[in-house]
């Protein structure tokens, strides 16, 4: 069973629907006991970092996610879930979980696209990921595969060793980060067509050592 963590941060049904489509039993739950029992955990989220951290604390999930990570349970972060895994977010100056050391920064509206036009914020649409470190969850990724992004802030881990993949939008940023049994994407694999479904499937089969 895969637990999709429900901490009242946006609509999480799309992740669950994608897992249903792939044939992986899953449950959308905020119950710590059910999450602890699950074989693997997906930590999604849409919304703001401040509100998300408040919800996690209220539901008693902020310490649980760290302990699941220490136990070695496979965890997939998505979008806001990924940002929360870092130490701090510039969004409402929010202290986050700190599983990966680093900051979440806002895109700079002074940045320019490759064609010289000013970037639009949020970064919304399809973009590529260039792989910096081979990872089982990224297996089968083709160079021209693209993923669906919707975000105004981006992960900026301290250690380059934890950057699995990067994306260019005005600047190059870490769009896939990871540490041991944790992998986290800034994009939405559940909305990224075949490439995204392939990544989800890889995660569902992943056996971190």
């Amino acid at each position, binding site marked *: 069973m895969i637990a999709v963590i429900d901490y009242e941060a*946006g*609509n999480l*049904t*799309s992740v669950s*629907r*994608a897992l*249903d*489509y792939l044939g992986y039993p899953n449950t959308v739950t905020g119950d710590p006991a059910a999450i602890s029992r699950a074989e693997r955990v997906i930590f999604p989220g*849409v*919304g703001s970092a401040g509100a998300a951290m408040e919800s996690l604390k209220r539901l008693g999930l902020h310490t649980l996610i760290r302990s699941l990570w220490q136990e070695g349970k496979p965890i997939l972060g998505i979008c806001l879930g990924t940002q929360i895994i870092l130490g701090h977010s510039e969004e409402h100056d929010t202290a986050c979980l700190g599983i990966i050391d680093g900051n979440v920064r806002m895109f700079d*509206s002074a940045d320019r*696209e*490759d*064609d010289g*036009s*000013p970037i*639009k*914020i*949020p*970064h*919304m*649409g*399809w*973009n590529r990921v260039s792989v910096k470190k081979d990872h089982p969850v990224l297996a089968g990724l*083709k160079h*021209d*595969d*693209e993923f*669906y992004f*919707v975000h105004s802030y981006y992960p900026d881990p301290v250690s380059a060793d934890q950057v699995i993949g990067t994306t*260019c*939008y005005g600047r190059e940023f870490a769009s896939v980060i990871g540490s041991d049994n944790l992998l986290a994407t800034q994009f939405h694999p*559940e*909305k*990224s*067509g*075949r*490439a*995204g*479904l392939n990544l989800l499937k890889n995660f569902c089969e992943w056996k971190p050592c």
Partner: protein
Amino acid sequence: MLSRRIIPCLDVHEGRTTKGIKFKDNIDIGDPVDMARMYYEQGADEIVFYDITASHEKRNIMIDVVRRVAETIFIPFSVGGGIRTLEDMRAVLLAGAEKVSVNSAAVNNPDIIRQGARAFGNQCVVLGMDVKHVGVSPSIPSGYEIVINGGRKHMGIDALEWAKRGQDLGAGEICLNSIDADGMKTGYELTLTALISQNVDIPVIASGGAGEPEHLYDVLTRGKADAALIASMVHYGTYTVPQIKTYLHDRGVKMRMGW
């Protein structure tokens, strides 16, 4: 760099895709779930559903369509048409749509944009604008006016001012439809599209007038649009989504080519 998006648009009447003759003589052209799956498999980057069901009692049919689409395709899709309240928005988003678009309801009650953005996030709220060229006047300084009811009712609102206001109220994207170009198949309204795109910070989807792949090239380059809506040029098999994307890619427009 972001890819430009190609977005098929399906008009849905009482659960069936129809030819876009609104409110009368609806011609059935297929099941919206089947058509969405076909476009998804062909590499469409997003899909827009526009519910033209007139009867309020039959609107729950659309929610069922949205739910079945969400189980079938794994790219973003938006739903518009008849969205008037926060509850209408919630129903569509919970059924699995990524975004919801408001058009005439926002003209009548701009606060719906702010309420929707606050409740669900800016990225969920698309401001749909129907625009007609009327010439420059003191009340319409851009020369483009907001209209509703398929262009029959002029609202006395300047399109550029409305686009900026929509952005300030929290819209995450604009779907800009030229009533003049709509259905003509002679190309998008490039002047209007460039005017709006260059004066807002949020993405603009161009709509109305697509008949040839070259029209998409024009609106994504000279028109500065972030995305282009297409309907009849793919619905009747004149072109396929891969043909259009390959054409644009070959002419140097950034496209998502792996799907």
